[in-house]
């Protein structure tokens, strides 16, 4: 398995959070520059409440952080979590590179034995 037992819950939340097009778009936007929930809501032609829900899902997955600033809620992307998600993929790729190496060794050993 790709994930270790300890971070798989967080990973599940992460994947669930990113499985929605609007949420992916929000993440991409707030990585570039912080935005208020109300300005996001204007951008997506959705209600403030709907966007707030999306932001809450992203926040639980630690993909974004939300700060209150006066009457506004400011959302910004969490680069560390994004990097973490990428490193999970990279670890998985490396796992298969290593497995392929070991299979190669095994095949070579059996050729030598023949």
């Amino acid at each position: 398995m790709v994930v270790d037992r300890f971070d798989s819950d967080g990973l599940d939340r992460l994947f669930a959070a990113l499985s929605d097009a609007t949420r992916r778009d929000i993440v991409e936007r707030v990585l570039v520059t912080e935005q208020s929930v109300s300005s996001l809501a204007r951008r997506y032609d959705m209600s403030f409440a709907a966007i707030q829900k999306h932001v809450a899902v992203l926040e639980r997955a630690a993909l974004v952080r939300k700060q209150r600033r006066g009457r506004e809620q400011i959302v910004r992307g969490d680069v560390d979590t994004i990097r973490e998600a990428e490193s999970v993929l990279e670890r998985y790729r490396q796992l298969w590179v290593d497995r392929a190496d070991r299979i190669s060794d095994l095949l070579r050993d059996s050729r030598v034995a023949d």
Partner: protein
Amino acid sequence: MDTIESTVDRDDRTLTFVTVFEAPPERVWQVWEDPRQLERWWGPPTWPATFTRHEVEPGGESRYHMTGPDGEKAPGWWRTIAVDAPHRYEFEDGFSTDDGEPDTSMPSMHMVITLEADGPTTRMTVVASYASVDDLDKVLGMGMREGMTGALSQVPALLAA
């Protein structure tokens, strides 16, 4: 051995790894089918795998555990979905609880292994996709790989900016 490809596909939500081995498909098939050979490569050297059950037939069950450097055990399971020896093997791979049985609260991976002859060599393609406990794919009509790549494909550029 060449690892010639490793891709994350946005459209069909999968991770793909392609490797070429200096052996015919019949020989490479054995490293999947024979539990004693499987044990020699599935786990890293520091976490060797032991398969106590391995039924390579549709609906067949496998049970294994990996043993860590301090003797700790990480148990896992496979469930065979489809087999077409020596060319295709499809199974689900997940975590087990301490009693060795599948832990349904944990995510699992859906795996499709394809072996194709290419002259004297074999091209092995491993396609892995994520099936969460909530079966996100069904519920949301899309899966994590699309999510991951959709949101993450531009990240390196953003970070470099």
